[in-house]
C-alpha cells in the first residue's frame, strides 16, 4: 500500500517535472540572472584585464624597438622591467582562456614553460622559423623572453653582449622583436574581439550546460588554479617525479620571480570568484553570489565562505615561499610543500563542490595516458 502511494506520488511528481520544464538544464530554481553576472564579468573584469595587458605589451613593444636602436645597459634594464610587468599582467588574464583566447590558444602561445633554449638558439641562428607551428610554442612567449632577457649570461653587461658583439647578435635581436611582436598582436586581437561583439555572444550563452559561458568560466577558473598547483609549484617540487625537485621547470626560471607570479595568479582567482575588478571595488553578480543564491553549503557553512577561507590560506602560505622558487624547491622544501598542500585543498571545493552546486560539468581533463 505504502509502495503504491509512493509510486503514485513519483508518477505525479515526474509528470510535474516533465511538464514544468524538461530540457532546461539548470537544476536550481533560484532568482539569479546569469546573464547579468556574465555581463559584469565581461565589461567590468575581463575587458579591463585585457586592456591592462595591452597597455603593458604596447610598452614592451616600444621598449624593444628602442633597445634595437640603442642596445645599451640602460635600455636593457628598461626592457627587463617592462617585461616583468607584462608577465605580472599576464597572471591576471590567464584565467580567461575561452572564446577568442581559446581560439588562438593564448595560454600556450604566451606561457609554455620550461622554454626550449636549444630550439631558441637554433631558430635564431638559422633566422628561419614560423612561430605559429606547433613545435615552436616552447621557443616563444614569456618564458623565451625570460631566457633572452635574463638567462643568456650571469650579468647584464654580458647579456648585452649577446645583442651587440656576440655571434648572431642581430638575429637574436630580431628573434626578440618577433616574439614580442607576436605577443602584442595576439593580445590586441583578443581584446579587439571582446570589444567588438564577443560580449554579446558571451552573455547570451547564459545556461549552465556544456558550451555555456558559465561552464567555460567555471572550468577555466578551476583549471587555472590547478595550473598553479601543478606546473607552477607541484612539478618543480617533484610531485610528478618521486619527490625529486625539478628546479628548471619553474615559471620565470631566469628572472626568478616565480613565487611572485604564483601569488598574483592565486590572488587573481580569488578576485575572479568575487568579481573584483583589477583596479576597483567589488560590484555586481559573481560566482560567489551565485553560490550564495543557490544556498550551497560545505560542512554546514556557506560554500563560498569555505572557498574564500581556503583561498586566503593558500595565498598566505604561498607568500611565505622565498624567491626564487627554483632554489626553494630544493632547499626550502617544507615551506613549499605547505603551500602546495593548501593550494591542493582548494581543488575539491572549486573542481567538485562549486560545479556540482551550479550544475556545471567539469570537462577539462588531464590527457589520456593510453
Amino acid at each position, binding site marked *: 500500500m505504502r509502495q503504491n502511494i509512493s509510486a503514485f506520488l513519483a508518477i505525479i*511528481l*515526474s509528470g510535474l517535472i516533465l511538464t514544468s520544464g524538461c530540457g532546461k538544464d539548470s537544476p*536550481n530554481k533560484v532568482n539569479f540572472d546569469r546573464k547579468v553576472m556574465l555581463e559584469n564579468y565581461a565589461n567590468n573584469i575581463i575587458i579591463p584585464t585585457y586592456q591592462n595587458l595591452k597597455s603593458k605589451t604596447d610598452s614592451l613593444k616600444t621598449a624593444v624597438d628602442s633597445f634595437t636602436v640603442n642596445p645599451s645597459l640602460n635600455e636593457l634594464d628598461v626592457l627587463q622591467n617592462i617585461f616583468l610587468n607584462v608577465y605580472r599582467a599576464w597572471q591576471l588574464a590567464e584565467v580567461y582562456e575561452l572564446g577568442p583566447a581559446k*581560439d588562438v590558444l593564448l595560454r600556450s602561445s604566451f606561457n609554455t614553460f620550461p622554454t626550449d633554449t636549444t630550439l631558441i638558439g637554433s631558430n635564431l641562428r638559422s633566422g628561419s622559423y614560423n612561430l605559429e607551428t606547433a613545435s615552436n610554442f616552447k621557443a616563444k612567449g614569456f618564458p623565451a623572453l625570460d631566457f633572452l632577457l635574463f638567462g643568456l649570461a650571469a650579468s647584464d653587461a654580458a647579456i648585452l653582449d649577446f645583442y651587440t658583439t656576440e655571434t648572431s647578435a642581430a638575429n637574436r635581436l630580431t628573434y626578440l622583436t618577433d616574439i614580442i611582436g607576436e605577443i602584442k598582436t595576439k593580445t590586441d586581437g583578443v581584446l579587439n574581439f571582446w570589444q567588438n561583439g564577443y560580449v554579446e555572444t558571451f552573455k547570451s550563452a547564459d545556461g549552465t550546460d556544456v*558550451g555555456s559561458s558559465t561552464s*567555460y568560466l567555471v572550468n577555466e577558473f578551476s583549471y587555472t588554479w590547478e595550473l598553479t598547483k601543478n606546473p607552477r609549484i607541484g612539478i618543480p617540487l617533484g610531485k610528478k617525479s618521486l619527490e625529486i625537485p625539478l628546479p628548471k621547470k619553474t615559471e620565470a626560471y631566469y628572472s626568478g620571480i616565480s613565487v611572485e607570479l604564483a601569488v598574483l595568479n592565486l590572488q587573481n582567482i580569488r578576485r575572479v570568484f568575487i568579481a573584483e575588478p583589477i583596479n576597483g571595488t567589488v560590484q555586481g553578480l559573481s560566482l560567489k553570489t551565485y553560490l550564495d543564491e543557490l544556498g550551497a553549503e560545505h560542512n554546514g557553512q556557506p560554500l563560498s565562505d569555505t572557498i574564500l577561507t581556503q583561498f586566503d590560506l593558500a595565498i598566505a602560505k604561498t607568500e611565505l615561499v622565498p624567491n626564487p622558487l627554483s632554489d626553494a624547491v630544493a632547499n626550502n622544501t617544507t615551506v613549499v610543500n605547505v603551500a602546495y598542500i593548501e593550494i591542493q585543498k582548494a581543488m575539491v571545493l572549486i573542481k567538485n563542490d562549486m560545479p556540482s*552546486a551550479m550544475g556545471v560539468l567539469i570537462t*577539462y581533463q588531464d*590527457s589520456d*595516458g593510453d
Partner: protein
Amino acid sequence: MISKFSRIQFYLLALCFSAFITSCEKEEDDDHKHYDVPTTYVFTDSSGNSTVDYTGQTQRLDMLTEMMTYVKTANTSGVTLDAQKLKDMYANQNAQFTGAGLNVSDKQIKDKVFAPDQGLFEQYFDSIAVASQSTSVAVNGIAGVGDNGTNKYLFSANGIEYTQFIEKGLMGALIYYQAVAVYLDTDKMSVDNTTVVSGKFYTQLEHHWDEAFGYFGVPVDFPSTTTGSRYWGKYCSDRNTLLGTNQKLMDAFLKGRAAISNDDLDTRDGQIAIIREEWEHVVAGTAVHYMNGSKNDFADDALRNHQLSEGYAFILSLKYNPARKVTIQQIDYWLELLGDNFYEVTLTNINTVRDEISVVYGFESMKEQL
C-alpha cells in the same frame, strides 16, 4: 546540502525519463508485435539454450590487443619491432599469439579488414619497425621515442605515432567496418531466419547480428556495467557524458536482436539506422575530442603528436560507415589540413578540422568541451 538535494532531483528526473522512454518503447512495440526486449544481451531459445555467439569477434579483439601490447614495447627507446612478426600476427600465421586458442583459430584480422586498406596496415608495420630502430630522442626530422617526462611514445621523423595509426586504424578498418558496413548490411541481413543452424541454437540472421554486437566490445549488461569495455565500447563510454551514446547503442543492439528473434524486420532496420548513426557519433566525437586534446597540449610535442595521431586515425575511420554523414572528400580535406608532419601542424588548421566536424555532426555547442 544543495548538492545532495539536486542529486535526488536528478535521480527522480532520470527515473521519470526512463519510465517515459520505456513506456514509449512498449507502445511502439505494441504497434507491431508483442515481444520483450531484454535489458542485457542474453537471448535464449525455448529450451533455455543461449542463442548468442560472437567468439570470432572476441578472438579478433584479443589478437589486436596482443598485437598492440607488442607494438607498445617500442615506446621504450632501444626496443625494436620486427615487421614480420606484426604481419604474422595480422594474418594469424606462424603462431605468434599467447592467448588460449588464438594460434589455432581459423580467424585472423587481415582478411576482415576493408580490402583496399589491408596493405596499408602492412606499410604501417614497416614504418613503425623502421622508427623503432632509432635510439635518438624524437624531434622534428628524427624518429625516436618522445618523452615529456610523464609519457613516452614512439614517433616517426614526422611526429607520426604509428602505434595509433595501427590501433585506431584497425578499430576503423576492421571493427567499425565489419560491424556497421558488413554484418549490418544488406547481404548479411538477408539470410535465413527460420532454420536453426546445424549444431547451434541460433539462426544465421541472429548470428550475424551477434557478430556485429561482438565488435562493439562491451559486456552483456552494458552500460550498467562498463568494466570490461574495450575499443569502441571504451570510447563510447568516454564520450557518453556529452553524447549519451552508451544507452542508445546498447538499446538498439538489444531491440534489433529481439526484433530478429521475433521476425520483426522493420524494427530491426530502424535499429540498424540508429546503430550506424550513433556509432558514427562516437567516431566523430572522439575525433573532435582528440583535436581538443592536441590543442590543449599543443606546446607538448609528445602529447600533441600522440593525440593528433589518434585523432587522425579516428577521422580516417569515418569512411567505413555506409550511412556516413561526410564525403570522402571532406575526410581527405581534414586529413590534409592536419598534414604529414605533426611538428608543423598549425592551430588554425586544428581549429578548422574540429569546427567542420562539429558542424556536420551537430556538436557545435559542445565542440570546445568534447
